[in-house]
């Protein structure tokens, strides 16, 4: 596995977090709780970003473009050297699944908080991983086990239709194309291959039959350097747009004891095909009959790790650092039993009524939900967005004693959460929590396409409420200096009077 068998917790004293936004802050909080000095890196677009403020120290690594900063391996390693870092945590995205980076980190004599580079290489190729899983006796999605190219096109008679074209080097839904008819195949292959090349520098594709209806269920694993492997439960990530997750929950409403045992067994088999320590996720599709099919394995922290932390009471990031330092997983992890129900919704700066397209703009107001059973991991500040990076603003997580209570808590939290200045997907999430499919838990990956579509039209009562609010806004603003909201409120007594009048106006 690793050459660093000798490592003890004390071997990690200063961690450079090679990421930004909410996940960088999440990692830095774990560092602080472990008594480890944390170092932020930032691009020129992020000089005032929250993750810079959350660290013990911060280093500039380059211009805004990711290639020049958060993907800039030499700049990051140089920052680590200048700051005396002894370990690097990659977060998710950016360089987290880049074996070259992992290798460079280790060659620089630093602890890499992640799996061995060889493991990343083995699993980074989704097609190879698919073959390995199949050989390990794990059911995989029906389709081809060989790469496609302009010559080798997938025979619909063999793969079946509709089929999904996927990038061997892929992930995050990029380089994927859904193909309904043989006629679409050539164009789809070209488009998917181009997208894959631009995203991953490798246009290799493979083909899978489309499982539909299907649920996307993944198993969270945590391994140490001594061969211990903990199974921290499953997550259901079936609410997706563009093959990317929007909502995750644990436990999965679609998984019973029998299926859970089968999923955990398959996950352990897949993990057994590679030398591995760190947090990892094995992803499956589950069809209507409760059969499961291996999709891929990610050996990094997942965006949605928080719901598993809420259900298990464990700090997965702290354990990532501890196993990287050579600690053994103990019974508190190996025997953990999840409790209650946890749901996460991702708050993106994108417009659900415009095909979930990212929106640019400035956040003029931010009011996060608070109170019992709420966790809001975010890096939101009032001010302009940085369109260079992923439009994820925040992750709203709720935990309650059972699923109905969790859904009610999520609805309450969504009603408390306000983002001003631009459209976010909060409008979709607020719609979702009132849908019978979601309330009952009986939904699948087609939910958004089939039930949301382009989004519901504005109801007349909503329109009339918006009109009322806008008129009151203009009336109230007319009392301020420049007739806009930009200014602080004129005087407190003034608005106090305003409130009391409003309250006295009550019928009764």
């Amino acid at each position: 596995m690793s050459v660093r068998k000798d490592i003890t917790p004390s071997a990690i004293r200063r961690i450079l977090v090679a990421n930004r936004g909410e996940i960088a802050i999440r990692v830095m909080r774990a560092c602080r709780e472990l008594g480890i000095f944390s170092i932020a890196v930032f691009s020129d677009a992020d000089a005032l970003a929250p993750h810079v403020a959350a660290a013990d120290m911060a280093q500039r690594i380059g211009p805004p473009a990711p290639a020049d900063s958060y993907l800039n391996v030499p700049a990051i390693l140089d920052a680590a050297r200048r700051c005396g870092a002894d370990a690097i945590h990659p977060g998710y995205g950016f360089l987290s699944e880049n074996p070259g980076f992992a290798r460079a980190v280790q060659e620089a004599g630093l602890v890499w908080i992640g799996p061995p580079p060889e493991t990343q290489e083995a699993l980074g190729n989704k097609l190879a991983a698919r073959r390995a899983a199949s050989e390990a006796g794990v059911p995989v999605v029906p389709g081809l086990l060989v790469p496609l190219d302009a010559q080798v096109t997938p025979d619909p008679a063999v793969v079946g239709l509709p089929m999904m074209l996927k990038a061997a080097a892929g992930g995050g839904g990029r380089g994927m194309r859904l193909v309904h008819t043989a006629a679409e195949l050539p164009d789809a292959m070209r488009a998917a291959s181009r997208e894959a090349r631009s995203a991953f520098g490798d246009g290799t594709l493979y083909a899978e039959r489309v499982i539909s209806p299907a649920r996307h269920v993944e198993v969270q694993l945590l391994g140490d350097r001594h061969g211990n492997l903990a199974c921290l439960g499953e997550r259901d990530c079936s609410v997706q747009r563009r093959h990317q997750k929007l909502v995750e929950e644990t436990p999965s409403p679609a998984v019973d004891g029998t299926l859970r045992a089968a999923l955990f067994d398959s996950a352990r088999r897949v993990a057994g095909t590679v030398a591995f320590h760190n947090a990892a996720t094995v992803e499956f599709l589950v069809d209507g009959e409760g059969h499961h099919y291996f999709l891929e394995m990610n050996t990094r922290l997942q965006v949605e790790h928080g719901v598993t932390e809420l259900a298990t009471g464990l700090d997965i990031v702290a354990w990532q650092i501890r196993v990287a330092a050579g600690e053994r997983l103990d019974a508190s992890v190996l025997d953990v039993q999840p409790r209650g129900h946890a749901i996460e919704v991702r708050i993106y700066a994108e417009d659900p009524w415009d095909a979930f397209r990212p929106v640019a703009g400035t956040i003029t107001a931010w009011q996060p939900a608070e109170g019992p059973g709420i966790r809001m991991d975010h890096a939101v500040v009032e001010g302009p967005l940085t369109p260079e990076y992923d439009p994820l603003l925040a992750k709203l997580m709720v935990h309650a004693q059972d699923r109905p209570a969790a859904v009610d808590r999520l609805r309450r939290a969504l009603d408390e959460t306000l983002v001003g200045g631009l459209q976010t997907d909060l409008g979709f999430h607020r719609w979702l929590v009132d849908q019978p499919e979601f309330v009952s838990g009986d939904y699948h990956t087609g939910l958004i396409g089939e039930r949301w579509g382009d989004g519901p039209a504005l109801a007349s009562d909503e329109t009339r409420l918006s009109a009322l609010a806008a008129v009151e806004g203009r009336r109230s603003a007319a009392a301020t200096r420049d007739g806009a909201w930009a200014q602080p409120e004129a005087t407190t007594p003034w608005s106090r009077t305003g409130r009391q009048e409003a309250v006295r106006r009550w019928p009764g």
Partner: protein
Amino acid sequence: MAGLTVTVAGAHVEPAGEWRLEWLDRRRGIARLSDGQHSLLALVEGSGSEWFVTLHGRRTPVAVMSWRERTLAEARAAAAGEGGPVEIRATLPGLVVAIKVEAGAQVAAGDALLTIEAMKMQNEVRAPRDGTVGQIAVEAGQPVAAGVLLLRLE
């Protein structure tokens, strides 16, 4: 402040009369709407006649206009209808992936003009109205910053 008319998506709207609005945070435009049986928070932003109201996570543009503002707006709309030139600019920084039209081509409202890849996804830039394609200011493969002129519609 009498005589304000409200339009949403071009249609005249009568404000909900049976509901009440209470400001909770005037500076940030946070208010409570309630009819005594239900309540929800409203986020109100804007100035002059241009307002945005967010209810249950949905942000709706609302025009609140005096008689004078309304007449001006109608005049502007008429002018646009006659088809003065329109400048199409990038709304996000990104990469021009493909140009779908040529200078001089006739296009109808909604026709795809070019494709831009931004924030990990490809976006079609479409014609806001019928017209003739004038200058094309970018070429495929070119990175563009937000606000950069892409194309002129005559």
